[in-house]
């Protein structure tokens, strides 16, 4: 019931919050920095991610919850397509639970940033919530939304395994304003190509219009700590592209 870890290692609760995208930017960065040099934490994270991946195919379908537990347990495989269909609906709707969870927390801010980039990943009929350090495959489709506590100018930029920097959003010369809200969908969906290696996602949020080229150049020069205009914040996530 326990795992071997040092006093510095995060608890399973912390790792679960991380994988669910619940940690603030500062907390997430600290945890990622620790995990990068901690073999037991990397192993534990892989275990938790494997469990997440197998859940959709092995756990009872959500639709079965209205039945008795025994009946639900018997029928979950048959109801698999129901969960998949529900997930497809969720892809279109973004991550509504965030609104639901945060409806009583208006006027609070995510630590370290006025906004956060969220996404969902669709693979065939399955849809999973985006999270940092996520495994993806060529052909997976990503759809993005932004959580912002106040109107913010935003950009979404990708950096593929070959080091190429691509501006996903916006298709304009300057960052585009996104309204405040907990689930502001962007008119953007991408399909991952077969370029091997890790794919970085960068969310950039600024209080005023900034040239997209300036932001892109800053990320090209330093993906870890881009020199952005004053007042701008930066969020980075890494998607690990699995072999097809």
């Amino acid at each position, binding site marked *: *019931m326990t795992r071997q*870890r040092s006093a510095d290692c995060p608890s399973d609760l912390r790792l*679960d919050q991380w994988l669910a995208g619940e940690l603030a930017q500062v907390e997430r960065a600290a945890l990622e920095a620790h995990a990068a040099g901690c073999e037991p934490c990397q192993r534990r994270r892989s275990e938790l991610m494997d*469990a997440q991946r197998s859940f959709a195919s092995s756990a009872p379908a959500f639709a079965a919850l209205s039945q008795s537990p025994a009946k*639900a347990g018997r029928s979950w495989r048959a109801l698999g397509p129901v969960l998949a269909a529900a997930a497809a609906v*969720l892809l279109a709707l973004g991550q509504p639970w965030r609104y639901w969870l945060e409806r009583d927390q208006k006027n609070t801010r995510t630590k370290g940033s006025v906004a956060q980039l969220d996404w969902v990943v669709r693979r065939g009929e399955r*849809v999973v919530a985006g999270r940092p350090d996520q495994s993806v495959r060529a052909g997976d489709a990503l759809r993005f939304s932004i959580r912002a506590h106040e109107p913010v100018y935003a950009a979404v930029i990708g950096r593929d395994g070959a080091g190429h920097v691509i501006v996903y959003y916006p298709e304009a010369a300057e960052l585009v304003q996104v309204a405040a809200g907990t689930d502001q969908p962007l008119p953007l969906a991408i399909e991952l190509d077969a370029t091997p290696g890790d794919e970085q996602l960068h969310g950039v949020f600024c209080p005023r219009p900034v040239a997209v080229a300036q932001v892109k150049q800053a990320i090209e020069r330093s993906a870890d700590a881009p020199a952005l205009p004053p007042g701008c914040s930066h969020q980075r996530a890494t998607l690990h592209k699995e072999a097809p």
Partner: protein
Amino acid sequence: MSPRLSIETLYVSHGPAVLRRARQLLGDEAEAQEVLHDVFTSLIQDPGQFAGMSSAMTFLYRMTTNAALGRLRRRRTHARLLAANYAGREEPTAPNTETLVELRAWLASLPEELAQVAVYYHMDELTQEELAGVLGCSRQWVGKLLQQLQQLQRRRHGK
């Protein structure tokens, strides 16, 4: 947006942690799936339970722990108490199956609040700060609960 749809999303993103946690506590796949069922059915019936919570994961950890402890209590007549060498370990090690059975029996014998603390502290190895967050109380109160737990452990082992 209907609450049911929101919970459906939560089921996909947080359900794996609920199921894993129930498995850890109960050591029984069928019962763990029933806990998963109970937790999310409860949310469908009363979505307001989430109001004011900053972390869905923390809330679901607590719900899962409570549901699993309730089941352990019902198993109590079939269990023995915790092995003598469990109490007071500074560095928990991976326990064998017999110790897990005894640990679950010991949890079932504790008052509800202390059983939760024992799970979070000994099994999850949460810090006192994390424990306060999950229980929704102050660190001082967590300290008092841990003292009570230690006293019960000492009493159990005649120290």
